[in-house]
């Protein structure tokens, strides 16, 4: 479930970290078990993920949730 509907309050650096790891959106999506569109929306800041997805994404990119998302 989304933590909040206030999308403007949260930014993330998923795209930057994904490119640093040479991962495509499809590959990251496979790693965290979601569809590619979800990664697309996450990167654009148009979707607030569940705590589990935030944790899995952070783990896949080798950072903590705190480092991945900024409120």
């Amino acid at each position: 479930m989304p933590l909040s509907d206030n999308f403007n309050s949260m930014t993330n650096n998923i795209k930057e970290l994904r490119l640093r790891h040479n991962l495509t959106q499809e590959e990251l999506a496979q790693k965290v078990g979601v569809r590619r569109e979800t990664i697309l929306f996450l990167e654009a800041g148009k979707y607030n993920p569940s705590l589990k997805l935030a944790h899995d994404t952070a783990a896949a990119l080798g950072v903590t949730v705190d480092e991945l998302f900024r409120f």
Partner: protein
Amino acid sequence: MTSKQYQGYRIAIVIMLSASISVAISLENYIAPVIAIAVGLILIRLGRQKVKEVLADERDYYMAGTAARYSISIFSVILVIGMFILMALQDKNPEFANIAMLLAYLTCGLMLLNSVVFHFLKTRESGSKVGFAKKFKHYLPFFLLALIVAIILAIASLRMFTPEDEWICADGNWTKHGNPSATRPTEKCR
């Protein structure tokens, strides 16, 4: 199987299912569609198991939940408006009153089902030690009482809203039931 292949596979099954149901209904065979639907559901389930990709994730489930909430609201409002329109037009055709009552009970049924499913999920998600079954047993007497009241109201409303004074078609002849204000129907009584 990829997700795109699965989509094609699912569309093919739906087309075949629709065709078989149409043929079965035109042949007045009403058991074949039930079997066809069951087979179709099994085939879709088997196909889905062969897909390695993620077909739906939390974002889809979140949107599905929102879509369901809007759908229930829109559908209920449409049914209630339809009910009032049919009630208003019951003078034109007495059958409209029965259809209106059916719409009203469909709306109530949908709301009730939604409420039961919501409370089931809420209980399950909350991890409460008092399970749904126990809560259901606790509320069963109230539920039965509400059901009895609903049945009494249904019978009373049918009695109230169904026109008493009308022309009835019986044995090929139009006969008066009460004192209908309308003139004898001109169409043939069958």
